[in-house]
């Protein structure tokens, strides 16, 4: 193990290098580019056995990844924003073919208007495409999640693709401390790849992606796919626990800070969870009963565990870095609200949309949100459910 000063992208590229998959198909896009180019350099240097396909688009990146994974190769790609959107059609197909592709997503706002900075509209837009989604707060989590993704995706009870998110620029481009593992530790943790129904098995040819229409089994296949998602719930925890036992950094579906006796809990995802934690620590010192729940697993959504963790809260503030046009709130808000509806306690839940297109979020903005929630906790129900933080007037 070593402690390195490295960018979020650099840490993820290193994790992928240490796993050393058989094939990478990638197309450069800001802010993911550093991963595509670092990995190309590893290949050029002869550091990895990986074959690199420098495809002509993200649609082809995911199509080639599907071909490669179906041919029995451990396969990766990485993307952001418009690239993610261009892959969208193929994301569903990768999942439905049960191909354990892994993909770091360096989150960035979707056009239009064009904006290259961070928000979660790309990955959240793909939340129902059948991929497992793990969100990291910082470069360390990006690195650790990228490694664990292989174990989760390739688990025989799961066999689903996994995307691991870090926030574009804020994390991907910032240099921070990362505890890296040794190559052997990573390889041993991830293990050998086991191909299932490979196209390259000449003894047993297979047809992949058959026509499964009316009179076929499409419906049953979709149910089986969702069952694999349910299975992933335990597998993600098992893998996170084992990672913790071996390397001292344990992972679960989410992490809480000062939640147990809190009247007010903020739910956050991505890099802003760290900012919220700082604010919570400060407010606790002032005697204010505030906590934070940081979501790591968004798909499958850990409904029951989150409901349980938030059952003592009077008021919940859900922070979304993407909006959902015409819906009741952002994607995280609607998930948390739905989870709480099924519980005994029915806390008030408010939504704070922040950071679209890379807009900064300051401690004062978060404190302002807490003040609103404190009013609500005191019985002064807020007029609006959805609030926007650090928005320009006029």
């Amino acid at each position, binding site marked *: 193990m070593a402690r390195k000063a490295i960018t979020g992208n650099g840490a993820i590229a290193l994790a992928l290098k240490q796993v050393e998959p*058989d*094939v990478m*198909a990638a197309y450069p896009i800001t802010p993911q580019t550093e991963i595509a180019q670092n990995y190309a350099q590893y290949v050029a240097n002869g550091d990895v*056995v*990986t*074959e690199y*396909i*420098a*495809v*002509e*688009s993200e*649609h*082809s*990146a995911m*199509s*080639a*990844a*599907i*071909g*490669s*994974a*179906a*041919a*029995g*190769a451990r*396969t990766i790609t990485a993307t952001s924003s418009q690239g993610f959107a261009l892959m969208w*059609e*193929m994301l569903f*197909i990768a999942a439905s*073919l049960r191909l354990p592709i892994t993909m770091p997503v360096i989150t960035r706002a979707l056009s239009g208007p064009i904006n290259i900075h961070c928000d979660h509209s790309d990955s959240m837009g793909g939340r129902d495409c059948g991929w497992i989604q793990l969100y990291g707060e910082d470069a360390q989590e990006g690195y650790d999640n990228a490694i664990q993704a292989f174990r989760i995706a390739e688990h025989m009870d799961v066999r689903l693709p996994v995307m691991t998110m870090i926030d574009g620029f804020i994390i991907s481009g910032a240099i921070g401390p990362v505890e890296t593992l040794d190559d052997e530790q990573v390889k041993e943790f991830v293990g050998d790849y086991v191909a299932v129904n490979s*196209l*390259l*098995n*000449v003894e047993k*040819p*297979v*047809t*992949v*992606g*058959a*026509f*499964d*229409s009316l009179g*076929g*089994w499409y419906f049953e296949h979709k149910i089986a796919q969702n069952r694999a998602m349910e299975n992933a719930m335990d597998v993600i925890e098992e893998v996170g626990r084992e990672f913790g036992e071996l390397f001292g950094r344990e992972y679960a579906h989410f992490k809480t800070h000062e939640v147990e006796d809190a009247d007010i809990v903020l739910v956050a995802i991505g890099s802003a969870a760290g900012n919220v934690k700082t604010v919570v620590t400060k407010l606790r010192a002032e005697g204010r009963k505030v906590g934070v729940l940081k979501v790591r697993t968004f798909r499958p959504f850990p409904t029951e565990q989150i409901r349980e963790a938030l059952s003592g809260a009077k008021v919940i503030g859900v922070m979304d870095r993407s909006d959902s046009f015409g819906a009741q709130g952002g994607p995280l808000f609607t998930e948390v609200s739905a989870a709480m509806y099924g519980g005994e306690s029915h806390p008030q839940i408010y939504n704070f949309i922040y950071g679209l297109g890379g807009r900064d979020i300051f401690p004062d903005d978060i404190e302002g949100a807490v003040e609103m929630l404190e009013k609500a906790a005191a019985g002064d129900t807020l007029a609006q459910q959805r609030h926007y933080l650090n928005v320009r007037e006029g």
Partner: protein
Amino acid sequence: MAKPKEIANKPERLTGGHRLCAGCGAPVAVRQVMGVCPGPAVVSVSTGCLEVSTTIYPYTAWKDSMIHSAFENAGATISGVETAYNSLKKQGKIKDDMYFVAFGGDGGTYDIGLQSLSGAVERGHNFVFVCYDNGAYMNTGFQRSSATPQGAWTTTSPVGKESAGKQQNRKDLTAILVAHDIPYAATASPHNFKDLMSKAEKAFATPGPAFINVISPCPRGWRTPGDQTIALAKEAVQSCYWPLYEVENGKYKINYKPKGDKKTPVADWLKKQGRFAHLFKPGNEAVLADIQDYIDRKWEELLKKEECLA
């Protein structure tokens, strides 16, 4: 090339019982290509007639491994498969020699799949791409593609007071592939199976990408009797609507040159197809002349290319 009889006696690699229409040109082309494939293959097929009709779950007509994922990506998909093969072979994880083939209709090749094919060819993957060109989106019920010839009726180039069918000429896709400096590109027709199969053999033997564009009459979309498919393919070649030629490392060779009267007027061929019936009504003489002019110009152009780049 092996004798046709020997090839015919080899086990089928696309079995009967699939649901393609009687008289469809596509499975004929597939069987001719796969008949000379020298070893086990992985086949990538773009969404279309061939794909939906040969893989109705839980059945498959393919004896080789086959993958379909979407419409526009047969080229990218096969490049992923071929790269996986290279990686695993280098690592000693697989031993067998394998071949990689992609089949697409004209929609999946000329139109929506062009970028993916272009990328795969530029990257130099070792694969054979076969386009079965029936001149429209036949699977969805006859909509125009960029391979649809001028004057053809389709449901999106309909015939009416203001329109005599498709107004534009075809995209010259084979020329586009040649412009990639692809090691091997050819046109072929199922009526001349010897020519088609020897081209497929060359394509399989070519290191790197190879492309074969096969004319594939479609009785439903062309409005022709199912038993006329092979005759129509033959006449397409005789009229020079579909010249047979190949380009090997930049060198052109025309495989069939009709001399004098042997080059039949295209109108004779058009007349046999219901999709052109409106052209033979008074008022559309100019369209017919345009079509003939275009074919003659392209044929002259091809003769010159051969002369300069033989």
